[in-house]
């Protein structure tokens, strides 16, 4: 089965556009993006686990979660639900946080997920707008820090240090 995946980054506007088709109807896909028990099954990279501390899916509510490697918590992320149009779209403001959901650096990204059901499949259009691309770098680092590849982690630190020095 060939499902569309499109990823476009616009560096000028610091926005990433992702389009992805899923072989399921809107009800299932919407649940998969908004229900804790399903998010836990797919959001974390293979070697990590997603641990959800809070999930309150309503406008003004928030989702606080951590990536976990073995016994190590690699860091918390917070998504605040700004607007929700059921089975149509929702928008979150995202940041790196402490375990209580306080933003670590006051840098945010805004993500809008749009859902469109067409026949047997549902297409999700994701737009992620970053305050600063440095935040994106941190996200990539966190997602890929798998502990096993020591050299890789060092490389991440190196890149972060040269980025911070500029």
């Amino acid at each position, binding site marked *: 089965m060939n499902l569309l995946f499109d*990823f476009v980054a616009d*560096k000028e506007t610091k926005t990433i556009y992702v389009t992805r088709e899923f072989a399921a109807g809107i009800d299932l896909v919407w*649940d*998969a993006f908004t229900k804790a028990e399903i998010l836990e099954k797919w959001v974390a990279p293979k070697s990590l686990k997603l641990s959800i501390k809070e999930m309150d899916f309503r406008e003004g509510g928030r989702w606080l979660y951590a990536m976990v490697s073995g016994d190590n918590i690699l860091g918390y992320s917070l998504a605040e639900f700004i607007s929700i149009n059921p089975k149509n779209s929702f928008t979150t403001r995202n940041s790196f946080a402490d375990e209580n959901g306080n933003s670590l650096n006051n840098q945010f990204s805004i993500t809008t997920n749009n859902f469109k059901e067409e026949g047997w499949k549902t297409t999700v259009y994701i737009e992620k707008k970053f305050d600063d691309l440095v935040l*994106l*770098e941190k996200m990539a680092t966190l997602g890929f820090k798998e502990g096993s590849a020591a*050299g890789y982690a060092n490389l991440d630190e190196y890149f972060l240090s040269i980025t911070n020095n500029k």
Partner: protein
Amino acid sequence: MRRDIFQAIADPTRRAILVLIAVHAMTPNAIATHFDITRQSISKHLRILSECDLLAQKHDGREIFYALKIDRMKEIDIWLDQFRKMTEQQFQQLDDVLITLKNNKNEPTV
């Protein structure tokens, strides 16, 4: 040949080489002493890194020193590549979850 930068960082040995030469420029022989693999395969990794345009070469007599060549835009590209790959894998995981959910739904509930 121009390669996708993700190929450079997809391999643990190449990531380790990048870490080494990020600190200071090194000859292929000096790099090889850090690894338990043949000089030949070090050369192969260096060739791939070079094709990804990540290596700066400095000649000193007969010796060639390799250093990490990287600029701000390239750093961003590396992260974007990682993020693209991560998103792709994440959604492949979701594909599997959706298949399971659909199958469960079709089964009679007890």
